[in-house]
């Protein structure tokens, strides 16, 4: 206990000195710094805050210092996270695919050269990454990879297309599953390749979602080039890396509601704002029932997350738990979206223009986007399949 307490005091003092006042307000969806060559700061304060945190390595507090991280222990990292949350500090650099996905994969499978090349650039926000897994027509059948990489001696030539690539239009590099052995069975013959997107052979087309956003893209490769030393893991063994990454993705998605810059008000606050109370109790008993059921399940999930964190001993989830958390958290995100619309009534239906404040206008879009969460990153059905097979050991 003692050392963490001292650390906590130190962290709080530093944050209070260094986090600009404006960076301690809730951020809108466009206000977070995303990094990369196309990233921009929403204000001078945002830049200052990012630069101070970057100097301490606290954009990725638990990465080793030699790769641009803060070198904190899991316990220290949690203290930092907790105190930032308590003080309302915004993340200085949004947790994108580089920090959450590729970073851990590099630590586990990367050569020293690969780690030195890529990790610090992620930590310093210089390179923004995106993930090329899904392909048109494949859906949940992730191992159904058609995008192929031909061996040309010192480099590969890549042809094919990737779908549902988050923020590909704003990324600099893409990590990709490609087929390097067309004759091998599904999972075999797939390699994991890092590709610089700033070349002519790559075209990116955003896809409009029902939420009105275009976070997802389709990426077209036409004789795109990737250097051989950018192969992560062994040739034709990329599926191993991919599977591990899927777990990170699930973990990430199960914590979306915690890390996402969603609407400001909790369902309870929304209820108090749009419904009437009598003696401190909502008079609309049907909606109240729905609210309490949601809040109870959300609290139970949070406690379950806490339990898993404590049990893991190192801040990392048991691989078998990731499916359950991804499933439950994203289904709950959908429920929260429906609940808030229900609580807000007609004030929750605004798409644009007058009659709604900016918080209200965010709700239907968050609601619509939540529909994607139980599909992306392995649909709920896929997660249930995994639980049935791996956790419950049911016969197939």
């Amino acid at each position, binding site marked *: 206990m003692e050392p963490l307490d001292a650390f906590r005091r130190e962290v709080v003092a530093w944050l209070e000195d260094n986090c600009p006042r404006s960076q301690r307000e809730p951020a809108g969806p466009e206000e977070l710094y995303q990094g990369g060559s196309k990233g921009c700061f929403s204000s001078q304060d945002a830049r200052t805050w990012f630069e101070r945190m970057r100097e301490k390595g606290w954009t990725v507090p638990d990465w080793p210092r030699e790769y641009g991280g803060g070198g904190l222990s899991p316990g220290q990292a949690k203290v930092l996270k907790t105190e930032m949350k308590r003080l309302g500090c915004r993340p200085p650099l949004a947790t994108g695919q580089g920090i959450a996905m590729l970073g851990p994969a590099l630590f586990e499978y990367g050569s020293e050269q690969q780690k030195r090349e890529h990790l610090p650039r992620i930590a310093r926000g210089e390179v923004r990454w995106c993930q090329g897994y899904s392909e048109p027509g494949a859906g949940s059948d992730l191992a159904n990879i058609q995008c192929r990489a031909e061996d040309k001696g010192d480099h590969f030539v890549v042809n094919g297309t990737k*779908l549902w690539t988050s923020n590909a239009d704003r990324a600099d590099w893409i990590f990709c599953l490609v087929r390097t052995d067309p004759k091998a069975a599904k999972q075999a013959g797939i390699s994991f390749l890092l590709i610089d997107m700033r070349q002519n052979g790559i075209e990116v087309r955003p896809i409009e979602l029902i939420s009105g956003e275009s976070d997802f893209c389709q990426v077209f490769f036409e004789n795109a080039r990737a250097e051989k030393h950018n192969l992560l893991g062994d040739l034709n063994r990329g599926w191993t890396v991919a599977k591990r990454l899927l777990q990170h993705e699930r973990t990430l998605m199960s914590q979306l509601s915690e890390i996402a810059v969603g609407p400001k008000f909790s369902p309870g606050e929304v209820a108090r704002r749009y419904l009437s109370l009598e003696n401190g109790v909502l008079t609309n008993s049907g909606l109240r029932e729905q609210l309490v059921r949601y809040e109870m399940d959300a609290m139970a999930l949070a406690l379950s997350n806490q339990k898993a964190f404590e049990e893991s001993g190192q801040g990392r989830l048991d691989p078998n738990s990731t499916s359950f958390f991804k499933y439950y958290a994203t289904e709950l995100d959908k429920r929260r979206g429906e609940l808030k619309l229900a609580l807000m009534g007609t004030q929750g239906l605004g798409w644009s223009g007058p009659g709604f404040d900016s918080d209200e206008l965010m709700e239907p879009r968050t609601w619509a986007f939540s529909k994607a969460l139980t599909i992306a990153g392995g649909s709920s059905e896929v997660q249930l399949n995994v639980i049935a097979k791996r956790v419950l050991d049911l016969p197939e």
Partner: protein
Amino acid sequence: MKHLVPSDEHIMLQDSARQFLQANCPVSAFRHLRDNSVSPCYSRQHWKQICDLGWSGIILPEEYGGLDFGYVGLGAIMKESGRTLLASPLFASVCLGAQYLLRAGSDTQKRDILPSVVCGDTCLALAIEEGPHHDPLATLFTAQPDGGNFVLNGTKTFVVDGQCANYFLVVARTSGKPGDAKGLSVFLVDIDRKGVERKQLHLLDARDYSSVDFDNVIVGEDDLVGSMNDAWRYLEPTLDAARILLAAEMLGGICECFERTVEYLRDREQFGVKIGSFQALRHRAAHLFAEIELCKAVVDTGLAALDGAPGSISVLASLAKARLNDIALLATNEAVQMHGGIGVTDELDIGLFLKRARVAIQILGDSSYHRDRFGRLNGY
């Protein structure tokens, strides 16, 4: 007596409605209106055609230019309009406005207004909501008697088809306190009357809604529709009929969404097999089928009751609205999920049904409102 089996005439009407709508106003027509920010979001040309087909007069007597073909007929049209996401003043002007006038209006009022509604020159809109949740008895909007006139003050929100309306039917309190049924009165107000200011609301479903301010708007006694303080007597049955008609529209949307989803399950392959062969999806689709069958029975019974078949209309209306709300939620969410990635793109029509459903759910009472009402009507 078979109330729930449509007559040949009703089947013919529904078939011709389907043909007309699929040919002239398919979902792509609605998408076009939305994408081109047509405002208010409906096609005047289609509305004219619809009026020429007589749909705007289906429930009205022949003396006002109507077809006198009953609610089952209008319900058939509403179902089909739900399938193609038809955006038109049909619900606001006919299902709500003309219906209320027919119940409550004086002979003069009916003669003056209804024929013009039927031919489509006049659009009515009911200005009833004041807060985010449907609660007509909570009306605070005031109409102050002043000599032979009334002075209206207050704001009405979520006025369906408010932008294309020529007249508002405004629900006001002339006596009593919020919560009382007694004391409500309804006024017919020309949108050009001094002190009326409407503002377009852009909602999720890209249709026509307004918020309207009334600032010392002066109306005459002639503008009172139905007797003073006693409008609830006409308004409640009007709302119930409109709820059942809206449920019919929602049923159309649900069926369309479901059929498209089943089609997708039959065609789409994954892991080398049709996804419709996955038992978990099969069971969910079969369960949804059962829920939708119940929706059909509830809507048809409600419509038949409006045409005189036995049954408490209030109970049936709350049952219909609550059930259709709930199953619309389930069916649209399942449709998105079963379509997978493509389901959350704007390119697919499913998202349009998803959004329309969320707005329709709030019109004339969400499920919590109607479950509470159903309980009260049943003595618990």
